[in-house]
């Protein structure tokens, strides 16, 4: 990492003695000033009753932790995901702004749909802090009070499920009784093939759905799975990510006979198969870049079940001013890095404002399934 120029360090010191150490993780003065302010506010909040000296010690301690590379979000214990404040803890990946941008956009599109199912079901695989269902709920229900939302977050990590449960309860408590949405969480392994041999401690997704009597069919599937290949892990991630965030959230497990790229892509084939099995009409998968996006789009196309597939950049709602705007026949929309792949079929196209109206028999059939009574618990861990 390039050294910080002495002139910048001097300038920072002149402003505040606590700024220079923050330059290392922040790289620029403006960002360091912001972080120092947020740390001060945090100290004011958590130690408001303590004396000036103690507060000062605490602040210095925080600055030191931050200077060592510890993510600010772990020190403050929260991150904003869109407008939603999410609790963060070491051991669970910090939600990213880029993810929030895609989720916000898809939730806005769906929120504008003319007709939606009587209950919209959203499955979020690899949910981490639970940030995706919470944000989807926030955006969607701000425009659609008429359609109750039902979300299910799935993760293999016990820590993640526990933290997600905490987040869901906290956010929903804030919304009091005004919410008609349900967000459930289950621990399951998304990667294992339900027909292959099962690990004892964590059930497969299908087994978990059965076990907790959760619906077998879901309207949407969203996932931000581990997608960093081993070589990109060393080359591309920042040291703060490598040293402080869980590797299991970033790098898929190694499989037999896989090369580096294939390992980075390991989740997608499985996710698309789940999308087929749960009959998802809209699928949104986060990816690392345009290249991975194109590979995932091809996988989806090879399943021959989608009516449309497109690639979104970091800011899908902004005008494209970037090349390419198309690759391998897939449109690439928005601004920034390649960030996600959107697939739709049947009425999913209508919800997204994509295709003319038509109804398939499959759609009507699944409506009958829906109307059957179901048994659920609110939180299933």
């Amino acid at each position, binding site marked *: 990492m390039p050294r910080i120029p002495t002139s910048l360090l001097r300038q920072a010191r002149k402003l505040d003695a606590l700024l220079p150490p923050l330059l290392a993780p922040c790289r620029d003065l403006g*960002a360091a000033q*912001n972080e120092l302010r947020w740390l001060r506010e945090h100290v004011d909040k958590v130690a408001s009753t303590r004396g000036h000296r103690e507060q000062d010690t605490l602040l210095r301690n925080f600055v030191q932790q931050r200077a060592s590379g510890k993510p600010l979000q772990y020190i403050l214990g929260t991150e904003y995901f869109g407008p939603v404040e999410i609790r963060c803890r070491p051991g669970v990946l910090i939600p990213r702004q880029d993810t929030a941008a895609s989720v916000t956009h898809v939730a806005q599109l769906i929120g504008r749909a003319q007709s939606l199912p009587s209950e919209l079901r959203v499955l979020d695989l690899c949910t981490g802090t639970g940030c995706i269902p919470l944000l989807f709920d926030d955006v969607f229900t701000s425009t659609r009070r008429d359609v109750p939302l039902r979300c299910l977050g799935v993760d293999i990590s016990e820590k993640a499920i526990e933290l997600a449960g905490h987040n869901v309860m906290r956010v929903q408590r804030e919304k009091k009784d005004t919410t008609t949405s349900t967000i459930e969480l289950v621990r399951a392994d998304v990667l294992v093939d339900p027909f292959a041999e099962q690990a004892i401690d964590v059930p497969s997704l299908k087994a978990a759905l059965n076990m907790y009597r959760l619906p077998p069919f879901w309207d949407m599937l969203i996932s931000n799975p581990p997608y960093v290949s081993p070589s990109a892990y060393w080359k591309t991630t920042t040291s703060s990510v490598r040293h402080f965030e869980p590797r299991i959230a970033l790098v898929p497990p190694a499989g037999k006979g896989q090369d580096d790229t294939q390992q980075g892509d390991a989740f997608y084939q499985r996710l698309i198969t789940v999308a087929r099995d749960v009959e998802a009409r809209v699928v949104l998968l986060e990816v690392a870049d345009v290249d991975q996006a194109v590979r995932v789009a091809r996988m989806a196309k090879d399943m021959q079940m989608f009516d449309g597939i497109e690639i979104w950049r970091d800011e899908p709602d902004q005008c494209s001013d970037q090349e390419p705007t198309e690759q391998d026949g897939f449109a690439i929309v928005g601004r920034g890095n390649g960030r996600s792949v959107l697939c739709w079929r049947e009425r999913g196209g209508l919800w997204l404002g994509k295709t003319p109206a038509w109804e398939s028999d499959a759609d009507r059939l699944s409506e009958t399934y829906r109307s059957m009574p179901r048994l659920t618990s609110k939180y299933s861990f």
Partner: protein
Amino acid sequence: MRTVPWVCRSCLLRISRTLTRRNVRYQSSSSTPESVPSALLARARSIAAEHRQLNEKLANGFDARAAKQLGQYGPVITALNEWQSASESMTELTSLIHDPTTDPELLALASDDLETTRSHLADASHSLISALVPVHPFAHLPCLIEIRPGAGGSEAAIFAGDLLRMYQSFCNRNNLRVTLLKYENADGTAEAGAPLSEAIIEVDSAGAYGVFRCEAGVHRVQRVPATETKGRTHTSAASVLVLPSIQDNASGEENIDDPDSDYYVDLKEVKVEIMRAGGAGGQHVNKTESAVRLTHIPTNITVSMQDSRSQPKNKEKAWQLLRSRLAQTRREKREEEAVAIRRSVVGVAKMGRGDKIRTYNWNQQRVTDHRSGMTVHGLDDVMGGGQTLDTVMESVRSWLMEKDVEALIAEEEGGTRR
């Protein structure tokens, strides 16, 4: 569209009393208690005539436009009628009193009545004036106050900080909800007393714009700065910008979805830049970038916000600020033309960001407002946002009201009304 200055009606009612009592001091040319300027009276009468015509029109069949117009004239008609009856009783009483043939008993009664009738007439005059002077379309809104140091280096920055605290205390004392939207010190910290580079506060109470709009302009300070070793007095300045603040769900003139509104911004004309982590983004980095910058391409106005950790919150505040700044520019441009005409008639000074409006003199412990001409001596109380600041601000509002009335009269006499 008619081009008349705006006045806040609730302030105006409070002010009209001050105005009449202090009219000598302000050397007003108009509005003695019992009199309504003849030009305004003429206008009221012509409105009454129009009102009668509309009434006849309505009698012959319904006309939605006429009905609406009629409703708008209502308050003027009521006020005019009351004024007329009050001034008739006044004339009657005076002629009785002056008539040598009036018998003593009646004379005593008439004299008794004179005081109440006079105050009656004064009230009726005020009501009539305020029914005729238009209300500023944004007077009912909350407002944003932006404070920046002007000429004078770090002393100006310190004074800007003093002004910020002055307004904050003023709001607290008057139970106005105030929040700090943006606070930037020259040294990047939020510590009090440090020189300020920019501060924006939102006064989130209805009517705040009507209260504070008279604060816009250049505030000058004369004092020996803390940093001055030779004891010399410096003159520095800070500028204050006051913008009406609109909410997303507003209606009428401040409706942001209405292309005719000053607050309308075509989304296509705004470049939205959000600070992204840079590099590969996504799972590879965990930076805490939340800054948002908006650029209005046609005018090149930019606003950036980075105070909150939440990007949407920064974006929301940035939009609010951009809308307010754009609306202000538009209104100023429109009013400039009007002011040019008016200035040639009555010499009304434009109240804008460029004009020096007030001086705070530490040596003499006084504050002088250059518009109303009022000087007060409780400098500390002013800086503490106390009652003395109220007094100064009220003097400006009443000055403003007077100018508005003058302008209106000039307009009447110039026969510019359609």
